[in-house]
């Protein structure tokens, strides 16, 4: 478990102090995929760097599995960082080394794995895990962005970490590649139980993969909770700005009488002749009332989300979710509204 308590970070700049983080407190359970979302300058990158102490916080503490990271010596910290690895927006591979050597790099640093043959075997297994075993001897310049990020993920996993920090890891990738990288992260999380912290400014990233989310605004946590809850009923102004970028009416979303709400997330659904919602009405006889929609079409694929009001009770909701999620590019879940 990661406990962030009253964390603050102040930079001394030429024109006075800049408060990047103010009194941030978060608890991230083991095995979670936790999203930290915010606009640029909200303090996301600083926060993630305070978790592995690449940046020393000016106040508060970060406690990982009972160990106060701030209290560690440089040497202890280096050891601890093998358990809390990181991937980056720019991939940050060693450009003069092959993919295999890149994945071997953290093993070599740790000095634990003395034998080269052992290291290379482990690295190859990891490259296989990310689907790039055939690129072992290629150099990063020969790979696409998505492939480079896969290598970076393999490298981050080499030391069997407990926590994976993702700093805008998909921000430099196109939507399709983003989806495949997120899918990889989710499958690794499911298989190994690794705790994943995802820093992003993209709603779609949090929607498609995170279980919990914290919304960061001006260095403070504006809102935190389960993704479905926070996004369906954003309370804070910052959360609303993120959930309704086009500007929302200000009114909290409420279901019409006798309706229940489901949230539908499109992650690159291939467009067909008839829209999905219309097809559902025809084929299943479920009529959906669209109470909110923000979708975009990129490359003939749909991204974004919708809130659908469904009347007809529990059974209809279940049927609708089942129908909508036939495609793996669509996520749907019921939204609980407590008034």
């Amino acid at each position: 478990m990661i406990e962030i308590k009253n964390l603050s970070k102040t930079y001394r700049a030429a024109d006075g102090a800049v408060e990047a983080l103010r009194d941030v407190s978060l608890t991230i359970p083991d095995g979670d995929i936790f999203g930290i979302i915010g606009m640029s300058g909200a303090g996301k990158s600083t926060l993630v760097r305070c978790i592995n102490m690449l940046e020393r916080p000016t106040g508060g503490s970060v406690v990982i599995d009972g160990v106060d990271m701030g209290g560690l010596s440089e040497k202890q910290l280096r050891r601890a960082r093998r358990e809390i690895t990181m991937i980056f927006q720019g991939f940050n591979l060693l450009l003069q080394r092959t993919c295999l050597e890149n994945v071997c790099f953290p093993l070599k640093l740790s000095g634990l794995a003395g034998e080269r043959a052992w290291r290379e075997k482990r690295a190859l297994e990891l490259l296989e895990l990310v689907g790039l075993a055939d690129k072992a001897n290629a150099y990063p310049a020969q790979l696409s962005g998505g492939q480079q990020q896969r290598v970076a993920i393999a490298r981050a996993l080499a030391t069997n970490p407990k926590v994976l920090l993702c700093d805008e890891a998909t921000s430099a990738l196109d939507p399709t590649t983003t989806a495949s990288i997120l899918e990889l992260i989710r499958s690794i999380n499911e298989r190994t139980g690794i705790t994943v912290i995802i820093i992003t400014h993209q709603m779609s990233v949090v929607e498609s993969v995170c279980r919990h989310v914290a919304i960061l605004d001006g260095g403070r946590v504006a809102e935190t909770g389960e993704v479905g809850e926070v996004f369906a009923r954003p309370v804070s102004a910052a959360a609303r700005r993120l959930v309704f970028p086009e500007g929302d009416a200000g009114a909290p979303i409420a279901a019409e009488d006798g309706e229940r709400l489901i949230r539908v997330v499109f992650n690159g659904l291939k467009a067909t002749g008839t829209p999905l919602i219309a097809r559902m009405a025809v084929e299943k006889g479920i009529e959906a009332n669209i109470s909110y929609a923000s979708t975009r079409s990129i490359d003939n694929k749909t991204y974004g989300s919708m809130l659908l009001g469904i009347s007809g009770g529990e059974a209809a909701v279940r049927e609708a979710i089942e129908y909508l999620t036939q495609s793996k590019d669509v996520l749907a879940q019921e939204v609980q509204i407590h008034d």
Partner: protein
Amino acid sequence: MIDKLFSPEVLQEAAEVIRTQFPLAVWETVYVTVLATVFAIVIGLPLGVVLVAGEKDGVCPLPAWLMRALNGLINLLRSVPFLILMVLVFPLTRLLVGTVVGTVASIVPLVIAAFPFVARLAEGSLREVNPNTIEMAQSLGASPMQIITQVMIPESVPSLISNATIAVTTILGYSAMSGIIGGGGLGKIAMNYGYYRYKYLIMVAAVVLLIVLVQLFQSVGTRLAIRADKRLKNR
């Protein structure tokens, strides 16, 4: 004038000098240049590493006064003209080699003139390494020494090779200059025959050979640098 310059006697003398003295002179020039470059790199590369790593935001910050002193020393050595530096280091040369004239003796001032230059070149190469790459290594638990030896230096190898080539060609030029006051090689021949005895043809021949050597070092260095760079695709 022209027939005087190319008279049979002149041509014959030039051919004689080229045949008897040039092979040794070329060897001396190459030998002095390569040896001085090696020593300059042995001193200059670690110094370049210190200049980058020891900065306030570097991977291994050193006291500010030490960094200021190092920078000051390098600037000082680089601002002394080479000919004057040669004379200034005579005592050191005598201490190390036992004499101040001759091919071997000229290596001492060459190294002293070249290592600050090499340090600055190495500094430039090492600064080209993306700070994000260094942060990546830190995030994986690399120590400052590991970052230097496994990230900064290996990642800047192509640039270091290019800059080593610049160093070699510059040192070659300095070594020719050292011919003025006792150094050996092509520089000495060009001085002795061209400047003191007005044998222009021999001087021109020596200069042509120097040009050929520079071209040779440069093209080998460029080729090595390109071959070492894995950032270029399809290689």
